[in-house]
């Protein structure tokens, strides 16, 4: 049974303003993004009959997100709801579209006013807060700490240095400088020395090894081939995609942490590339989840673009930089473009814009095949991959 290649396409993308948005609500950003992406496709809200929310969190207590949105978007029944991470949701939506379960589905996310980093955790005045039974928070850890523990172990096993990690922040900022919509681009280029001299957040990770923490929303519209051919932009076809889940969820890990055979990201990549019928060498442009510098290095290895332990070499050789073999995170990524709550759809949006040839100063010439990796809930505990192509 083959994946239905080129039977669904991404036809609309939209990003709200990203940054500090104190006057906006999460709902308002989501609605703006949905309307914006549908308009980008040249469709109307009445065309949407599938929903890809990034979580089941709703805006009406006690009501599932899909029913809330079915009512909010015009009191019409919606035919499909898919959860997971952005790339995987879109892959499943493409398969569902080919099977006739839906024709036009929209993936969306928006978050305002709630920081995900330590600034978002207020110290209580009178009583200790309760956290889940095995939560790392009782030990003083949080997301950055966990990735720092991961980075330390990785650096120990493979002889990788802080300067190697810093190279990721440097090339990603370079891309952000070329992206007029990025949050950090206006701050200009950075050097390895800048990263190493920025303050430690959780050793060995410095401030500039970490993604930013801002507000923003985005949406993506995926549609059947028939609908796609009549949309405003050329279709960006889905060639394949897959998702995988593994044990790492900030509570349980096994030794080795970096097995030769990889974890969920490897499994999702192998399956997605197999279904799409492409090899690693076919990828012209990539977007991959980059919550910390270490994450990009590990993703390059897990996705099989280089061998285990060689991710830092791959970056140092310039392959991820614009002009390199496989320009990666050309919008500036989560490190320097935007990191708003669950930003895992942002990488797909940038790849779509690259395949459309709409990226201006940061355009990858003749980009035909692109890949987006969503990865989350832990260090490779969950991963999903989407392979896209223009005609």
């Amino acid at each position, binding site marked *: 049974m083959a994946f239905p290649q080129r039977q669904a396409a991404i036809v609309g993308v939209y990003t709200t303003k990203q940054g500090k948005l104190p006057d906006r609500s999460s709902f308002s950003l989501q609605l703006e993004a949905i309307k914006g992406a549908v308009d980008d496709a040249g469709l109307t809200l009445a065309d949407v009959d599938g929903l890809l929310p990034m979580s089941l969190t709703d805006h009406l207590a006690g009501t599932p997100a899909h029913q809330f949105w079915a009512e909010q978007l015009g009191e019409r029944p919606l035919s499909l709801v898919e959860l997971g991470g952005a790339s995987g949701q879109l892959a499943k939506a493409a398969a569902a579209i080919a099977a006739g379960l839906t024709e036009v589905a929209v993936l969306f996310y928006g978050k305002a006013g709630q920081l995900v980093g330590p600034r978002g955790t207020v110290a209580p005045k*009178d009583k200790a807060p309760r*956290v889940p039974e095995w939560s790392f928070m009782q030990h*003083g850890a949080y997301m950055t*700490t966990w990735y720092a523990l*991961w980075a*330390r172990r990785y650096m120990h096993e493979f002889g990788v240095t802080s300067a190697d990690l810093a190279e990721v922040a440097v090339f990603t900022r370079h891309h952000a400088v070329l992206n007029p919509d990025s949050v950090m681009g206006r701050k200009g280029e950075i050097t390895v020395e800048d990263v190493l001299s920025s303050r430690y*957040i959780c050793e060995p990770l410095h401030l500039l090894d970490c993604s930013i923490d801002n507000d923003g929303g985005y949406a993506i519209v995926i549609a059947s081939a028939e609908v796609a051919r009549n949309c405003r932009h050329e279709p960006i076809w889905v060639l394949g995609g897959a998702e995988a889940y593994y044990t790492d969820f900030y*509570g349980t*890990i096994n030794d080795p942490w970096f097995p030769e055979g990889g974890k969920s990201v490897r499994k999702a990549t192998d399956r997605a590339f197999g279904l799409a019928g492409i090899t690693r060498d076919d990828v012209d442009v990539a977007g991959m989840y980059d919550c910390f510098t270490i994450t990009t290095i590990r993703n390059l290895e897990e996705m099989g673009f280089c061998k285990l332990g060689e991710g830092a070499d791959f970056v140092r050789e310039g392959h991820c930089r614009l002009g390199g073999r496989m320009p990666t995170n050309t919008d500036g990524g989560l490190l320097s473009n935007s990191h708003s709550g669950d930003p895992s759809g942002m990488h797909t949006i940038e790849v779509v814009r690259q395949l459309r040839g709409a990226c201006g100063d940061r355009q990858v010439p003749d980009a035909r095949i692109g890949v987006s990796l969503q990865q989350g809930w832990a260090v490779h505990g969950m991963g999903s991959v989407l392979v896209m192509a223009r005609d």
Partner: protein
Amino acid sequence: MTYLKPLPDTSELNRPFWEGLRQHEFRVPRCADCGDWNWIPYPACRSCQSEHQVWTAVSGNAVVWSWSVVHRGPGAFNDEVPYTVVLAKLAEEPRSLIVTGNLVGIDPAEVTMGMPLTVVYEEVPEEDITLYRFAPVR
């Protein structure tokens, strides 16, 4: 002084673990059928899916498997920076027993990979709970 750092919302299912900490024992569910240790506690053994697990005290001997010195802490932890969070590998094998914890009793700058550790216990004032921490073996 009131303890304001996060505390676990403990469950009836895992009561033997928290009771163990009160008695200064670190108890891990061990499979009665295949002998494997399961951390964090799950309702059945991950190796053979047996539900017959027995809370078994481990030696408390461990080594540093990874660590991070935290310079920006969340909530009340930020009053204690810099402090060290450790991934400690417990001595009991064959299943890897890597436990996240707070490392106390050492200057963060002196932590090294593989350093021998032991589990220590911290009674939380005004709360009916004992927490585990790790400390270097002196």
